[in-house]
Protein backbone atom coordinates (compact mmCIF):
# COMPACT_ATOMS: atom_id res chain seq x y z
CA UNK A 1 0.00 0.00 0.00
CA UNK A 2 1.38 3.43 -0.85
CA UNK A 3 0.48 6.80 0.59
CA UNK A 4 -1.51 8.18 -2.29
CA UNK A 5 -3.62 5.06 -2.28
CA UNK A 6 -4.02 5.47 1.44
CA UNK A 7 -5.17 9.04 1.11
CA UNK A 8 -7.55 8.13 -1.68
CA UNK A 9 -9.41 5.75 0.67
CA UNK A 10 -10.69 3.74 -2.21
CA UNK A 11 -12.49 6.75 -3.67
CA UNK A 12 -14.14 7.70 -0.40
CA UNK A 13 -11.48 10.23 0.56
CA UNK A 14 -13.86 13.17 0.86
CA UNK A 15 -16.14 11.38 3.26
CA UNK A 16 -13.56 9.61 5.34
CA UNK A 17 -11.13 12.48 5.71
CA UNK A 18 -13.72 15.10 6.38
CA UNK A 19 -15.09 12.84 9.11
CA UNK A 20 -11.68 12.50 10.67
CA UNK A 21 -11.02 16.21 10.25
CA UNK A 22 -14.24 17.07 12.01
CA UNK A 23 -13.49 14.60 14.77
CA UNK A 24 -10.13 16.30 15.15
CA UNK A 25 -11.76 19.70 15.35
CA UNK A 26 -14.25 18.53 17.95
CA UNK A 27 -11.58 16.95 20.09
CA UNK A 28 -9.22 19.88 19.92
CA UNK A 29 -12.11 22.23 20.54
CA UNK A 30 -13.07 20.29 23.61
CA UNK A 31 -9.55 20.73 24.91
CA UNK A 32 -9.03 24.35 23.95
CA UNK A 33 -12.38 25.79 24.95
CA UNK A 34 -12.24 24.70 28.60
CA UNK A 35 -8.69 25.98 28.88
CA UNK A 36 -9.74 29.34 27.48
CA UNK A 37 -12.69 29.35 29.80
CA UNK A 38 -10.35 28.74 32.69
CA UNK A 39 -8.26 31.73 31.72
CA UNK A 40 -11.36 33.89 31.55
CA UNK A 41 -12.61 32.76 34.94
CA UNK A 42 -9.26 33.39 36.55
CA UNK A 43 -9.00 36.83 34.97
CA UNK A 44 -12.46 37.65 36.21
CA UNK A 45 -11.70 36.60 39.74
CA UNK A 46 -8.50 38.60 39.69
CA UNK A 47 -10.46 41.65 38.62
CA UNK A 48 -12.92 41.04 41.45
CA UNK A 49 -10.07 40.77 43.93
CA UNK A 50 -8.63 44.06 42.74
CA UNK A 51 -12.02 45.78 42.87
CA UNK A 52 -12.70 44.52 46.36
CA UNK A 53 -9.30 45.75 47.48
CA UNK A 54 -10.12 49.22 46.17
CA UNK A 55 -13.50 49.20 47.85
CA UNK A 56 -11.88 48.06 51.06
CA UNK A 57 -9.32 50.87 50.95
CA UNK A 58 -12.07 53.37 50.32
CA UNK A 59 -14.08 52.26 53.28
CA UNK A 60 -11.03 52.51 55.49
CA UNK A 61 -10.25 55.98 54.16
CA UNK A 62 -13.75 56.99 55.15
Amino acid sequence: MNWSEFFAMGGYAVYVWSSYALAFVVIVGNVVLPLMQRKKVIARIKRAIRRDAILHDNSIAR
Partner: protein
Amino acid sequence: MWHWIQRFSSPKHFYVISAKLIPWFAVPTALLMIVGLYQGLFVAPPDYQQGESYRIMFVHVPAAWMSLFIYVVMAVSAGIGLIWQIKLADMVAVASAPIGASFTFLALVTGSLWGKPMWGTYWVWDARLTSELILLFLYFGYMALQSAIEDQRTADKASGLLAIVGVVNIPIIHYSVVWWNTLHQGATVTKFAKPSIDIHMLIPLLLMALAFQLFYFAVILVRTRNEVLYRERNRRWVRELIEQL
Protein backbone atom coordinates in the same frame (compact mmCIF):
# COMPACT_ATOMS: atom_id res chain seq x y z
CA MET B 1 -19.72 5.96 52.68
CA TRP B 2 -22.02 8.94 53.06
CA HIS B 3 -19.30 10.76 54.86
CA TRP B 4 -16.87 10.02 52.09
CA ILE B 5 -19.30 11.29 49.48
CA GLN B 6 -19.83 14.46 51.43
CA ARG B 7 -16.14 14.97 51.74
CA PHE B 8 -15.28 14.32 48.15
CA SER B 9 -18.14 16.38 46.90
CA SER B 10 -16.99 19.48 48.66
CA PRO B 11 -15.92 21.71 45.77
CA LYS B 12 -12.65 22.61 47.38
CA HIS B 13 -11.66 19.00 47.94
CA PHE B 14 -12.68 18.13 44.42
CA TYR B 15 -10.58 20.95 43.06
CA VAL B 16 -7.48 19.66 44.77
CA ILE B 17 -8.01 15.99 43.91
CA SER B 18 -9.03 16.54 40.33
CA ALA B 19 -5.80 18.34 39.53
CA LYS B 20 -4.00 15.11 40.27
CA LEU B 21 -6.50 12.96 38.39
CA ILE B 22 -6.40 14.74 35.05
CA PRO B 23 -3.07 13.35 33.79
CA TRP B 24 -4.27 9.84 34.60
CA PHE B 25 -7.00 10.30 32.04
CA ALA B 26 -5.27 12.55 29.56
CA VAL B 27 -2.20 10.40 28.90
CA PRO B 28 -4.02 7.09 28.30
CA THR B 29 -6.46 8.98 26.06
CA ALA B 30 -3.63 10.13 23.84
CA LEU B 31 -2.00 6.72 23.76
CA LEU B 32 -5.20 4.85 23.05
CA MET B 33 -6.13 7.27 20.34
CA ILE B 34 -2.81 6.88 18.57
CA VAL B 35 -2.94 3.11 18.75
CA GLY B 36 -6.59 3.04 17.79
CA LEU B 37 -6.05 5.29 14.81
CA TYR B 38 -3.10 3.23 13.65
CA GLN B 39 -5.04 0.01 13.97
CA GLY B 40 -8.12 1.52 12.35
CA LEU B 41 -6.43 3.19 9.43
CA PHE B 42 -3.58 0.81 8.66
CA VAL B 43 -4.20 -2.60 10.20
CA ALA B 44 -7.93 -3.15 9.77
CA PRO B 45 -8.75 -4.62 6.35
CA PRO B 46 -11.17 -2.95 3.95
CA ASP B 47 -14.76 -4.08 4.29
CA TYR B 48 -15.88 -6.51 1.61
CA GLN B 49 -19.06 -4.47 1.03
CA GLN B 50 -18.25 -0.93 1.98
CA GLY B 51 -14.63 -0.77 0.91
CA GLU B 52 -12.63 1.87 2.73
CA SER B 53 -15.58 4.06 3.61
CA TYR B 54 -16.39 2.02 6.68
CA ARG B 55 -13.37 3.57 8.41
CA ILE B 56 -15.67 6.43 9.30
CA MET B 57 -17.01 3.96 11.83
CA PHE B 58 -14.01 4.48 14.10
CA VAL B 59 -15.12 8.01 14.83
CA HIS B 60 -18.84 7.71 14.18
CA VAL B 61 -19.68 4.87 16.51
CA PRO B 62 -17.66 6.05 19.54
CA ALA B 63 -19.05 9.54 19.10
CA ALA B 64 -22.59 8.18 18.92
CA TRP B 65 -22.06 6.06 22.00
CA MET B 66 -20.62 8.99 23.89
CA SER B 67 -23.52 11.21 22.92
CA LEU B 68 -25.86 8.82 24.71
CA PHE B 69 -23.54 8.06 27.60
CA ILE B 70 -22.88 11.71 28.40
CA TYR B 71 -26.57 12.49 28.42
CA VAL B 72 -27.16 9.74 30.96
CA VAL B 73 -24.28 11.01 33.08
CA MET B 74 -25.71 14.48 32.87
CA ALA B 75 -29.20 13.40 33.86
CA VAL B 76 -28.00 11.22 36.71
CA SER B 77 -25.79 13.88 38.20
CA ALA B 78 -28.53 16.45 37.76
CA GLY B 79 -30.80 14.08 39.67
CA ILE B 80 -28.24 13.72 42.44
CA GLY B 81 -27.92 17.48 42.61
CA LEU B 82 -31.66 17.90 42.73
CA ILE B 83 -32.36 15.30 45.38
CA TRP B 84 -29.35 15.44 47.67
CA GLN B 85 -28.48 19.05 46.99
CA ILE B 86 -24.89 18.22 46.15
CA LYS B 87 -23.54 21.24 44.35
CA LEU B 88 -20.72 19.35 42.70
CA ALA B 89 -23.20 17.09 40.93
CA ASP B 90 -24.92 20.09 39.41
CA MET B 91 -21.61 21.37 38.22
CA VAL B 92 -20.79 18.06 36.57
CA ALA B 93 -24.13 18.16 34.80
CA VAL B 94 -23.57 21.69 33.59
CA ALA B 95 -20.06 20.88 32.42
CA SER B 96 -21.23 17.76 30.58
CA ALA B 97 -23.73 19.47 28.32
CA PRO B 98 -21.37 21.17 25.86
CA ILE B 99 -19.20 18.07 25.58
CA GLY B 100 -22.22 15.89 24.97
CA ALA B 101 -23.59 18.31 22.42
CA SER B 102 -20.31 18.34 20.54
CA PHE B 103 -20.19 14.55 20.38
CA THR B 104 -23.79 14.42 19.26
CA PHE B 105 -22.94 16.87 16.54
CA LEU B 106 -19.96 14.76 15.54
CA ALA B 107 -22.06 11.62 15.40
CA LEU B 108 -24.63 13.36 13.26
CA VAL B 109 -22.15 14.77 10.76
CA THR B 110 -19.96 11.71 10.48
CA GLY B 111 -23.10 9.61 10.19
CA SER B 112 -24.40 11.63 7.33
CA LEU B 113 -20.96 11.68 5.71
CA TRP B 114 -21.08 7.92 5.91
CA GLY B 115 -24.64 7.86 4.69
CA LYS B 116 -23.84 9.55 1.39
CA PRO B 117 -21.70 6.68 0.04
CA MET B 118 -23.77 4.00 1.75
CA TRP B 119 -27.36 5.09 1.29
CA GLY B 120 -26.83 7.61 -1.48
CA THR B 121 -28.09 10.50 0.62
CA TYR B 122 -26.77 12.58 3.46
CA TRP B 123 -29.95 12.45 5.38
CA VAL B 124 -33.07 10.37 5.69
CA TRP B 125 -35.81 10.96 8.19
CA ASP B 126 -35.67 7.62 9.92
CA ALA B 127 -36.10 6.98 13.58
CA ARG B 128 -32.48 6.72 14.67
CA LEU B 129 -31.22 9.68 12.75
CA THR B 130 -34.12 11.81 13.86
CA SER B 131 -33.92 10.83 17.47
CA GLU B 132 -30.21 11.60 17.48
CA LEU B 133 -31.07 15.02 16.09
CA ILE B 134 -33.58 15.40 18.88
CA LEU B 135 -30.87 14.50 21.35
CA LEU B 136 -28.88 17.44 20.04
CA PHE B 137 -31.89 19.66 20.69
CA LEU B 138 -32.26 18.27 24.18
CA TYR B 139 -28.69 19.30 24.87
CA PHE B 140 -29.39 22.71 23.39
CA GLY B 141 -32.53 23.05 25.47
CA TYR B 142 -30.62 22.18 28.62
CA MET B 143 -27.91 24.72 27.86
CA ALA B 144 -30.41 27.38 26.84
CA LEU B 145 -32.42 26.97 30.01
CA GLN B 146 -29.28 26.99 32.10
CA SER B 147 -28.11 30.25 30.58
CA ALA B 148 -31.55 31.83 30.53
CA ILE B 149 -32.08 31.68 34.28
CA GLU B 150 -29.99 34.17 36.12
CA ASP B 151 -30.00 32.74 39.61
CA GLN B 152 -27.51 29.88 39.71
CA ARG B 153 -29.37 27.68 42.17
CA THR B 154 -32.60 28.04 40.28
CA ALA B 155 -30.90 27.45 36.95
CA ASP B 156 -29.29 24.25 38.21
CA LYS B 157 -32.48 22.82 39.59
CA ALA B 158 -34.65 23.81 36.65
CA SER B 159 -32.33 22.57 33.96
CA GLY B 160 -31.62 19.46 36.01
CA LEU B 161 -35.29 18.65 36.03
CA LEU B 162 -35.35 19.10 32.28
CA ALA B 163 -32.40 16.76 31.84
CA ILE B 164 -34.19 14.11 33.86
CA VAL B 165 -37.39 14.45 31.90
CA GLY B 166 -35.44 14.26 28.65
CA VAL B 167 -33.88 10.95 29.57
CA VAL B 168 -36.92 9.17 28.12
CA ASN B 169 -35.42 9.88 24.75
CA ILE B 170 -32.35 7.73 25.34
CA PRO B 171 -34.02 4.32 25.12
CA ILE B 172 -35.94 5.57 22.13
CA ILE B 173 -32.69 6.32 20.32
CA HIS B 174 -31.08 3.08 21.33
CA TYR B 175 -33.98 0.82 20.43
CA SER B 176 -35.11 2.83 17.44
CA VAL B 177 -33.37 0.40 15.11
CA VAL B 178 -35.29 -2.44 16.73
CA TRP B 179 -38.71 -0.84 17.03
CA TRP B 180 -38.77 0.66 13.56
CA ASN B 181 -37.21 -0.89 10.52
CA THR B 182 -34.75 1.71 9.41
CA LEU B 183 -31.90 2.16 7.01
CA HIS B 184 -29.51 2.44 9.91
CA GLN B 185 -27.37 -0.45 11.05
CA GLY B 186 -28.81 -2.56 13.84
CA ALA B 187 -26.71 -3.47 16.85
CA THR B 188 -23.56 -5.03 15.50
CA VAL B 189 -21.19 -4.55 18.36
CA THR B 190 -23.34 -4.36 21.41
CA LYS B 191 -25.22 -7.56 20.80
CA PHE B 192 -25.08 -10.01 23.67
CA ALA B 193 -24.21 -12.86 21.41
CA LYS B 194 -21.03 -12.86 19.39
CA PRO B 195 -20.54 -9.48 17.79
CA SER B 196 -21.12 -9.74 14.06
CA ILE B 197 -17.98 -7.89 13.13
CA ASP B 198 -14.47 -8.85 12.13
CA ILE B 199 -12.10 -8.92 15.06
CA HIS B 200 -9.60 -6.68 13.23
CA MET B 201 -12.27 -4.07 12.93
CA LEU B 202 -13.61 -4.63 16.41
CA ILE B 203 -10.30 -4.00 18.17
CA PRO B 204 -9.66 -0.49 16.84
CA LEU B 205 -13.32 0.34 17.37
CA LEU B 206 -13.14 -0.64 21.01
CA LEU B 207 -9.83 1.16 21.42
CA MET B 208 -11.29 4.33 20.00
CA ALA B 209 -14.40 3.97 22.11
CA LEU B 210 -12.29 3.66 25.23
CA ALA B 211 -10.18 6.61 24.18
CA PHE B 212 -13.28 8.75 23.73
CA GLN B 213 -14.53 7.66 27.12
CA LEU B 214 -11.31 8.61 28.88
CA PHE B 215 -11.19 11.82 26.90
CA TYR B 216 -14.60 12.71 28.27
CA PHE B 217 -13.45 12.05 31.81
CA ALA B 218 -10.42 14.28 31.35
CA VAL B 219 -12.41 17.11 29.82
CA ILE B 220 -15.22 16.89 32.34
CA LEU B 221 -12.68 17.30 35.11
CA VAL B 222 -11.26 20.43 33.52
CA ARG B 223 -14.66 21.90 32.87
CA THR B 224 -15.96 21.10 36.33
CA ARG B 225 -12.90 22.72 37.83
CA ASN B 226 -13.70 25.91 35.92
CA GLU B 227 -17.24 25.73 37.17
CA VAL B 228 -16.01 25.29 40.74
CA LEU B 229 -13.71 28.27 40.49
CA TYR B 230 -16.40 30.44 39.02
CA ARG B 231 -19.09 29.54 41.49
CA GLU B 232 -16.90 29.68 44.54
CA ARG B 233 -15.34 32.94 43.37
CA ASN B 234 -16.27 34.70 46.58
CA ARG B 235 -14.90 32.05 48.87
CA ARG B 236 -11.69 32.67 50.66
CA TRP B 237 -9.91 29.54 49.35
CA VAL B 238 -10.49 30.50 45.74
CA ARG B 239 -9.31 34.03 46.33
CA GLU B 240 -6.15 32.78 48.00
CA LEU B 241 -5.55 30.25 45.28
CA ILE B 242 -5.94 32.81 42.52
CA GLU B 243 -3.72 35.32 44.24
CA GLN B 244 -0.95 32.76 44.26
CA LEU B 245 -1.23 32.25 40.50
